[in-house]
């Protein structure tokens, strides 16, 4: 999971508390939870937390840590207190996400075909065509229903009552949906009485919607469609999720070695002979999909898959080449993209982003390095970045030289004061920063399951919600109008 903006809260900014209003009273949709929390003895919550942990461990809901052996399958900390989103807030988010997801899919279809947005001069050609994530192999391709990114995880943070910012559009292979589902299962098990007092929108039908989405983009009729989930294998950090989704949809979980191409079709090897596969929900990266087209040394994919795909004999979900739309360089252009394809103002904001390639932006960034987060355009996982507010003068000066040498390689953003939700911590119930990843499913329509994965920074004051750095998850409740 990607790193969020910033490393530590900026004390001088006011943090939006999602549960408690400015007058000190709980906000409307949090009243019931707040009262309930006050009645809970800490020891009961501690017991529930232990129970939750044993549920997760028993089910094996773990993530593997790269470069380590099997002993390091870790549990992601689970926070017992649900995050609540009101019906009105959700409507705003839902409209905003749908708008963005549609626009980004239109963008993908356009840049691999007519490239109208470039011809209209609304976005520089270089930023798309010279981007590593742009796949020339996809030029001229029109996937079923024109959809490139079928499963989207939109990372959203909040800084105020109406202030939602999109941090990242995960259009390639977003993960985390299994935690959304398992967190809900655990909560239903632990706190049935709390559900009885709220009207919480269900999330459990996600696998069914996913299946419908995959069938809708199949090259054959839905009822004749065979789906397979393609995983790199048990050593992948998200292996649990891959097997979970295949199991929940009732389809096979395959590895590259289980598949082969023959006579213009894709097959999986079964004990009863070869069986045709029509839709591949792949959880491996583009470059590993097909050694004949991409990395010849890769054994994770299937030789000949890309040719089949371009011929329309099989659908790959999400389509290869979607990475161009969630690249950090493109991110700052998403507001233009939304306007260009929808003719509307974006409902959700981008985090203000300075593109250091532009001289004016660069001089602003150089002057304000100590307040900004500077990121490498193609970097990920927190490498090659500067977090101004927590860096020493020396580090900032070092970075200034690097930045001046290759300004086009960097973007800069302010650190945001992320909203906080109550979490059950060692010192009792206390506010902690959160973000949110709702999941959208795109086929003939956009379906967004009401909820998502809320990640929470369990350390006091920390803005880092990454699971690898002590972040946890919690159940996300979207209330429905009764």
């Amino acid at each position, binding site marked *: 999971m990607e790193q969020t903006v910033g490393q530590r809260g900026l004390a001088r900014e006011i943090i939006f508390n999602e549960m408690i209003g400015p007058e000190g009273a709980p906000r409307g949709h949090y009243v019931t939870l707040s009262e309930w929390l006050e009645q809970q003895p800490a020891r009961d919550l501690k017991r529930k937390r232990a129970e939750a942990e044993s549920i997760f461990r*028993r089910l*094996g809901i773990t993530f593997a840590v790269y470069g380590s052996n*099997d*002993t390091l399958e870790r549990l992601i900390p689970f926070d017992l207190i649900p995050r609540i989103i009101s019906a009105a807030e959700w409507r705003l988010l839902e409209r905003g996400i749908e708008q963005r997801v549609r626009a980004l899919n239109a963008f993908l279809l356009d840049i691999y075909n007519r490239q109208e947005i470039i011809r209209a001069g609304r976005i520089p050609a270089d930023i798309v065509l010279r981007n590593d994530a742009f796949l020339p192999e996809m030029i001229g391709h029109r996937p079923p229903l024109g959809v490139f990114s079928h499963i989207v995880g939109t990372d959203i943070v909040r800084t105020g009552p109406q202030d939602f910012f999109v941090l990242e559009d995960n259009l390639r292979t977003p993960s985390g949906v299994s935690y959304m589902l398992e967190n809900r299962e655990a909560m239903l098990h632990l706190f049935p009485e709390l559900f009885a007092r709220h009207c919480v929108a269900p999330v459990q039908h996600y696998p069914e919607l996913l299946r419908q989405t995959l069938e809708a983009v199949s090259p054959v009729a839905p009822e004749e469609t065979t789906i397979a989930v393609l995983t790199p*294998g*048990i050593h992948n950090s998200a*292996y649990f999720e891959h*097997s*979970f989704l*295949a*199991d929940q949809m009732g389809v*096979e*979980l*395959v*590895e590259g*070695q*289980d598949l*082969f191409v*023959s006579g213009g079709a894709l097959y*999986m*090897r*079964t*004990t*009863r*002979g070869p069986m045709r596969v029509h839709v591949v929900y792949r959880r491996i990266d583009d470059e590993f999909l097909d050694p004949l087209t991409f990395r010849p040394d890769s054994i994770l994919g299937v030789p000949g898959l890309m040719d089949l795909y371009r011929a329309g004999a099989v659908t790959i979900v999400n389509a290869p080449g979607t990475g161009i739309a969630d690249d950090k360089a493109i991110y700052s252009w998403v507001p233009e993209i939304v306007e260009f394809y929808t003719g509307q103002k974006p409902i959700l904001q981008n985090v203000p982003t300075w593109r250091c390639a532009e001289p004016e932006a660069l001089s602003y960034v150089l002057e304000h390095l100590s307040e900004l987060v500077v990121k490498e355009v193609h970097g990920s996982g927190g490498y090659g970045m500067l977090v101004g507010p927590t860096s020493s003068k020396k580090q900032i000066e070092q970075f200034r030289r690097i930045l001046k040498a290759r300004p086009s390689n960097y973007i800069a953003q302010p650190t945001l004061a992320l909203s906080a939700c109550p979490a059950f911590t060692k010192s009792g119930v206390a506010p902690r920063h959160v973000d949110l990843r709702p999941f959208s499913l795109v086929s003939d329509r956009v379906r967004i399951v009401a909820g998502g994965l809320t990640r929470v920074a369990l350390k006091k004051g920390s803005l880092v919600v990454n699971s690898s750095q002590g972040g946890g998850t919690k159940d996300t409740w979207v209330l429905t109008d009764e």
Partner: protein
Amino acid sequence: MLSRVASSLFWMSRYIERAENISRLCEAGFRISLTPKVGGGHKEEWLSTLKSAGVLESYLSVHDEITGEKAINFLLFDERNASSVKSCLTSARNNARIVRTKLTRDMWESLNDTWIALQAVSPQSMTNARLPDFLDWVRHRTAQFRGALLGTVLRDEGYYFSQLGAFIERADNTARIVDVKYYLLLPDHQAVGGAIDTYQWETILRAVSAQRSYRHVFHEDYRPWRVAEFLILRPEMPRSLRFCYDWLNVTIDGLIEGQHPELSAARLIRSTHQLLKSSQMDDIFQSGLHEFLTDFIDRNNRVTGNLAVDYCFEQAA
């Protein structure tokens, strides 16, 4: 079912069965080494234990000499030995993780708990005093897994592949134990070599947990040809070759139901089953016990190869 999944279920069960057998062999070797009178024979006993386990070569590639301590460590914990109890349980769990959704919760938890507990066992702590407890533990855990499997899993293709794995492995193990000791089991052995301590025969039976059931079946002292018959031809002895093939025969029936023509593994299982059903101990001794066992082990190995071909276990595009 995906071929790879079938293969994983097959090998998961095989490794569990192997872990159990290795621990039984180890116990037999350990018991012998405790009998004072055998003296210098200890080395030979561990040699034959390593042979029975089919790991003598790999042992000698790591160690120069055979000692009880080294043999025990190699059989139980050495990760360079793919058949050590630890390697077997790790391989079984890896296979189980691959097919996680095809296992019941009981099966997964049993295997996972075993593996987690095993991580905490330090090979250095395996003193003579602790060894028996540890060997018991391995047997209990493998028995629990088998119980979880038999008690909860759907009787579908996956179940049949797991049974094929378990019983091919068991037949192989029993055949090896008998083969390594075949000279003890020759009917004229006593005449030739004088009185062999019945302890030796008991050890063979102990290695397959059969020392008491022998008496229930035969109501007499251990006699070498009886022991051989018991382990090779008796259908009521659950670790005998005959029993294993009775079970494999039933299993393959379930697996190929409705499929025609019969595949190569099925044909081989049927003919081997027929051979065991129709054999007499006298004939086996006449034509050579060792030859019979060598032939059996070879056939039994070929069943695995045939299954791999019939069900595309290996990549064959």
